[in-house]
């Protein structure tokens, strides 16, 4: 159940521990697969823990309940972070994370709702997630259901025109039950060749103004500060009636592993055994 302005220090500590545990599992899964993405999953981890452990009204034992809150990972390449949090939340065994990206796995490189319970939409081709969220939010109102729909987008995919087609229609249909979360880690896969060369920070100083221009209410939050994240996300839909809300979460790509932080090269890169051990040590794993 959503709560949380009064969240206890103890609970905050638990959530932070869960996020660290999730990061360890993400690093291990990517190391084992020798494939997949790291930077984006690590920037999204805290938000996913906040959503699945405090914000979303969901039941892992009944993942198709009609009244559940919906979540769409529009930045589908961060799938391993979502899978890890779903596993920690009890949707499927944690051991299954080791099957990521292997043949016949339910944990596909990009989320496939046809094989894994708990996924509300298949994603992977960037810029597409907000539109199904609009459909779900319209549908909720038509069905008289009070569930909320959260869509997490990467800041890079805001370059896709479809995002703004969806933003326009969401405001038009007064979808105050829809929340877009922008994982604003400022680093896409390769970026624009302006001063400084490849991997340069993606400058989007206008990102807030863009959402506001499309008729959205905008909140900004530190995407790694659990004490702020939980209440911000839990109450994001309680803004102005008839107005959808965008939460711009300021994040660090590769968060939690010092040599990955703010390094575009770790967008997607296999880990060596040594790098994996170093990353896990930073994330508090005791040497075997």
């Amino acid at each position, binding site marked *: 159940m959503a709560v949380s302005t009064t969240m206890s220090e103890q609970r905050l500590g638990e959530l932070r521990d869960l996020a660290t545990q999730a990061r360890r599992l993400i690093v291990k899964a990517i190391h084992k697969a020798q494939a997949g993405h790291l930077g984006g999953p690590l920037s999204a981890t805290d938000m996913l823990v906040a959503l699945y452990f405090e914000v979303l009204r969901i039941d892992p034992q009944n993942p198709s309940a009609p009244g559940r809150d919906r979540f769409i990972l529009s930045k589908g390449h961060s799938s391993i972070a979502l899978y890890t949090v779903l596993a920690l939340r009890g949707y499927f065994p944690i051991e299954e994370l080791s099957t990521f990206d292997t043949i016949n796995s339910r944990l596909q490189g990009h989320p496939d709702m*046809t094989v894994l319970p708990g996924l509300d939409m298949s994603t992977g*081709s960037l810029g*597409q997630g907000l*539109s199904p969220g609009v459909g*779900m939010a*319209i549908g909720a109102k038509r069905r008289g259901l009070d569930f909320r729909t959260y869509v997490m987008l990467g800041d890079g995919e805001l370059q896709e025109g479809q995002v703004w087609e969806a933003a326009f*229609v969401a405001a038009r249909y007064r979808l105050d039950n829809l929340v877009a979360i922008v994982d604003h880690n400022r680093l896409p896969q390769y970026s624009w060749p302006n001063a400084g060369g490849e991997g340069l920070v993606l400058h989007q100083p206008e990102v807030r103004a863009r959402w506001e221009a499309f008729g959205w209410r905008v909140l900004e939050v530190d995407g790694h500060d659990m004490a702020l994240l939980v209440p911000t996300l839990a109450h994001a839909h309680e803004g102005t009636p008839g107005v959808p809300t965008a939460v711009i979460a300021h994040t660090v790509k590769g968060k939690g592993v010092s040599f990955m932080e703010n390094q575009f090269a770790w967008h997607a890169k296999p880990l060596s055994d040594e790098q994996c051990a170093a990353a896990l040590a930073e994330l508090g794993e005791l040497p075997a």
Partner: protein
Amino acid sequence: MTSVEMQAQRVVFGETLVELADLYSDLLVLDGDLANSTRADILNKARPDRFLEMGIAEQNLVGVAAGLATLGFVPWVSSFAAFIASRDLDQIRVVVAQPHLNVKFAGGYSGLLTGATGKTHQSVDDIAIFRAMPHMTVIAPGDGPEVRNAMHAMMEHVGPTYLRLTRDPSPSITPRERPFTIGAAYVLREGSDITLISTGVQTSRALEAAEILSGEGISVHVLHVPTIKPLDVDAIVAAARTGRVVTAEDHTIIGGLGGAVAEVLGEHRPTPMVRVGLRDVFGESAPNGPLLEKYGLTPAHVAQAARDLLARTAAT
């Protein structure tokens, strides 16, 4: 030709949506600001509660439909065939076909006859595109009555489906009350010298071609294939028993009905063939008559293709 009833498929489409809205409480129609062309406006006028305007934004249009489908709604995405098959193709692939969501696509103004709008608004490759896409069902009705019957069948079918519709009135050639079976082809005329296999409203031109040829003493078999996918393989193989097959479609011969029939016969019953349709070209803006003439889709063209094939195969 004796006088036959003429109906515009787009009008039947709009009227049938109204009929279906009464039968299915979950039916919704999503428009891309073309409702007065596609005639989805008929539904909007009768049942505004079932109509969702999505504006000039086809990619979002498909995504919204996918989201609604996850809640059990049955969204009909209405736009022009050219836009559905190209402008939002990635969206259809990723959020509808791959997750196998129950979204219906109604592609209006298909083929060359689009009210003189030209190549940007003509769809010459939509059948090929959707045939190639896994999970998609592809239907091209032959006339107004078949549009209505196919739409009823589509509501009973679960899964992504593309319905290819035309703009202008065309002759009614199928029985008004015949329930439509997705995946079934229909013999419209029995014959023994040569077989015409066609889809969509081109079937009415194939029937006219059969009349022309019949007047020349040629016995023509006509098979109408309103479902391009799944294809009625048995019916096509059986129809090829004349030993000569001419396919006809208002679409490119590459990957469309002609390509599909060639694939089937190549595997099951190698048969001399000629494919009538667009020959790897886009169209242009012009009235219907000159378009059919220039791009080789008239009954006379179909008849000539049949004569050529008969001549070519007579020697062997």
